[in-house]
């Protein structure tokens, strides 16, 4: 039906894709911090060929910026590992070395104080590369974060992530940058879920990557990069409906699939008495839902221009649209049947 990752012009990229998957496994399953660093290095080495294309000015600049930030972060990470190994002989996590290690990992993820490269790079990549960047590249820094984190520092970072992710997306017209800021916001939720339990993080991460996959596959099939491309007259109504469902699911509105991980995280927030943090989580989610609804409402009501020919891939792929809408709507109810 559709093989997104296999639709590549170059079969060398399959090789680098495989190495990228393998590098994450190296990083999260290593015995020592040095093995973790090796996994992060191989990740960088294998992701750069996937995104660089020397015939295109935009992708040269993108791969350059990505390389500079990620290499700085991983070399800092190694230095802090060595300092930790040589100067610290206990396992107390509330010290400055854990702050430095967490900072370098947050820079690798594109989290809040170090997020300035993230919307720029997401703007310069194609949709499939964006999907890899937003989902798979976050796995190994997250899990490494869960091994040695400083609770107070991370709570401050969570607040910054949420606020920057929600307020940064308000003035965007590019769909890629919108999803980038949404990704930064969801990073805040994910970092908190790491502090609770890794199993909870895995649950949030899987549902988040499924939602991002549905949205990115829709945008990829329609070849849409900007918001004014949503106002097409002869776009099928069900595609717009699917867009509505997926956006609201990503924002975390109740009947849809995206509400469930946020619900569980709120429950854990309230059990651990993080009341002010719950307030910030709620309010920033509200801002995000505001600008999603603004996009979809405009897309339903305004039809500016009529295309002479539409993308034929959509007409043969209505199964994907219907399937993703069905999953997004009914997951919450069907999940109660699983755990019966």
């Amino acid at each position, binding site marked *: 039906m559709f093989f997104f990752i296999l639709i590549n012009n170059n079969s060398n990229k399959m090789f680098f894709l495989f190495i990228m998957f393998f590098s994450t496994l190296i990083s999260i399953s290593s015995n020592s911090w*040095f093995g973790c660093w090796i996994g992060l290095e191989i990740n960088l080495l294998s992701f750069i060929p996937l995104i660089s294309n020397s015939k295109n000015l935009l992708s*040269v600049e993108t*791969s350059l*910026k990505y390389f500079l930030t990620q290499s700085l972060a991983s070399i*800092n990470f190694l230095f802090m590992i060595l300092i930790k190994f040589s100067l610290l002989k206990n396992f107390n996590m509330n010290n400055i070395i854990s702050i430095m290690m967490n900072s370098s990992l947050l820079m690798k993820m594109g989290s809040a104080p170090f997020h300035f490269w993230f919307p720029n790079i997401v703007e310069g990549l194609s949709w499939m590369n964006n999907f890899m960047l937003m989902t798979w590249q976050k796995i190994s820094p997250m899990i490494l974060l869960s091994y040695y984190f400083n609770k107070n520092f991370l709570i401050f970072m969570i607040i910054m992530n949420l606020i920057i992710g929600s307020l940064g997306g308000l003035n965007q017209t590019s769909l890629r940058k919108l999803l980038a800021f949404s990704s930064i916001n969801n990073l805040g939720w994910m970092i908190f879920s790491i502090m609770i339990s890794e199993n909870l993080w895995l649950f949030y991460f899987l549902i988040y990557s499924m939602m991002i996959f549905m949205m990115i596959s829709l945008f990829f099939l329609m070849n849409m990069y900007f918001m004014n491309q949503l106002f097409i007259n002869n776009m099928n109504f069900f595609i717009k409906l699917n867009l509505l469902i997926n956006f609201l699911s990503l924002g975390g509105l109740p009947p849809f699939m995206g509400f469930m991980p946020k619900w569980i995280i709120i429950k854990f927030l309230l059990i651990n008495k993080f009341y002010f943090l719950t307030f910030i989580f709620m309010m920033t989610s509200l801002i995000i839902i505001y600008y999603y609804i603004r996009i979809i409402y405009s897309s339903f009501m305004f039809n500016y221009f009529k295309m002479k020919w539409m993308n034929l891939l959509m007409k043969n792929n209505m199964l994907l649209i219907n399937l993703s809408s069905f999953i997004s709507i009914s997951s919450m109810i069907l999940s109660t049947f699983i755990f019966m």
Partner: protein
Amino acid sequence: MLIYDIWFLFIYMFFLGNLIFVSKNKHLFVVLLSLEFIVLSIFFFFFVLLIFIDYDMYMLMVFLVFSVCEGSLGLSILVSMIRSYGNDYFQSFSML
């Protein structure tokens, strides 16, 4: 103690390398050189550390292999930038 004075050298070298990395330069090549300087300072640190704990230098070799790989990746990105832009000035970035 004499041993603890050497930590200042490593932290100083590392900090200076980072400072040059984040400073405003005209060329991209200076940034890559500062990255290699940080790698050099970590190499020195690793070397002294492994001597103090009487450990063989295998880990150092593995570190060197990966750092050199990263350096060569940086150089290949520099080459691709020069092939498309014509120079490596930071001012020629107009896309992002």
